[in-house]
């Protein structure tokens, strides 16, 4: 399969790789939201850590990804896009925008869905920790 130049660039030089600490450490921090989506047996696991200000602005984001090049590129791009955005703005990001930006072929659309899911899961986690109202069903809110 031929990859777009953007996917290759993200694969070789991924943006914002890392975490804000071990799973126990980030669990204890109220300013950090953690999203882990996917499963090893499906060949994709994305982990997104976001650091959010009291005002609800995503100040920093870090990702880790077990997955194909498109999954790595999707999560790398997602961290770029959400940095500096409010959580509401970040929730408005659609997987189709990621597909477009990275020119993902149809067989790789699930990678972009996973990236969108990881953003939602991380924000959800941050909201829960901070006593904000959370969406009843994050999945119902967006069309696949």
């Amino acid at each position: 399969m031929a990859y777009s130049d953007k996917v290759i660039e993200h694969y070789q030089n991924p943006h914002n790789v890392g975490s804000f600490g071990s799973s126990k450490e980030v669990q204890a921090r109220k300013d950090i939201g953690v999203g882990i989506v996917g499963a090893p047996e499906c060949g994709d696991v994305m982990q997104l850590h976001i650091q959010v200000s009291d005002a609800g602005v995503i100040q920093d984001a870090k990702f880790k990804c077990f997955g194909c090049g498109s999954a790595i590129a999707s999560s790398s791009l997602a961290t770029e896009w959400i940095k500096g955005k409010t959580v509401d703005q970040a929730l408005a990001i659609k997987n189709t925008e990621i597909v477009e930006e990275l020119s993902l072929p149809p067989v790789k659309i699930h990678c972009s869905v996973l990236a969108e899911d990881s953003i939602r899961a991380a924000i959800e986690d941050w909201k829960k920790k901070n006593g904000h109202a959370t969406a009843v069903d994050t999945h119902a809110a967006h069309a696949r």
Partner: protein
Amino acid sequence: MNKTRPLYLDNAATTRCDPRVVEVMLPYLTEAYGNSGSRNHAFGWEAEEAVEKARDQAAALIGANAKEIIFTSGATESNNLAIKGAAHMYAKAPEGQTGRGHIITALHEHKAVLDPCKRLQKEGFDVTYLQPPADGVITVDMVAKEIRPDTILVSIMWANNEIGTINEVPAIGKLCHDKEIIFHSDGTQWVGKMPTDVERDNIDLLSWSGHKMYGPKGVGALYVRRRKPRVRLEAIVDGGGQERGMRSGTLNISGIAGFGKACELCQHEMQSEGERLLKFRNRLETELAKAIEVTQVNGNASKRVPNITNISFGFVEGESLLMGIKDIACSSGSACTSASLEPSYVLKSLGVGDELAHSSLRLSMSRWTTDKEIDYTIASITKAVLHLRKMSPLYDLYKEGVDISKIQWQTH
């Protein structure tokens, strides 16, 4: 190293055609273009001579008589002809009925064996698919347990195409002969690489392909035993009655001439080549295991052909690993490299676990593989795995001491 093209370690998929083979083929495309079926002129005789020479060469490679060699388009056709042809010939009930006979094969066989078996199931035959053990080796005992009074055919490959493991073929053949059951083996990854003797090894039907052994694509052979027992097959392709009526169609003279030459070369070179490839394989496996923690060689450690290794690198997904070593042509058991999004059914059947199946690479070497290429491959894979582990959340969890298999993943 060639800068423009990747180095090639996908020889279990196909090999380069040996230049000595090409040389033999060329005249049959240009001057000697006759049809071996033309018995009344020199063009036909020339072609027939080429075919009979190739038949001798193919027979010599496997210890058969030349009359027992049927030329086909490749191992897929040979497998189809052997399995469907034998099932139809030895069926215990006519078409349209059930209980037409029992066939034994294994779950990690090539699709060119599994799919003909599935078709036969629809036609009223029963098929038992043996579950391979974790080391991938099908033993004679596993086959013996499944034999029934109505078993007509056993089809067990000699060496597996994804992991290179060697099944207990001579013993399974002996069992089948004792029980008067036809025994077929898909020898695609075996013949030409390892010593083969259809008499000693108790084979009734043996498939193999030219392009896996430095011959041309589009040509293969099926060995069909002529005595003790005489095996008969119902043809799939009907027509001019070529190849003793078992495979009609004008023969692919240049391809067959090349196939014969490839067989001859393999017969002479397999021993020294095998020793060299085994050293390469061992070096790949030991040095990668030394450089990278949590690696696993899939399949039995010793019962494997020397040219194939299949290694899982934990916490790293196969397709992304291929991207990291894009100047090395090889394959992965990862879902993403197949159209189905399913990881390798071969590794799954061994119980390797989907996660490690996603993390696997198959490296397969050839006559032309060099020491330098092995060095380069070890260095490239190590670099790519370490790059990917830096971004692997699973590697972090492993380092934290978390058992990944115990986590409740949010599957989607």
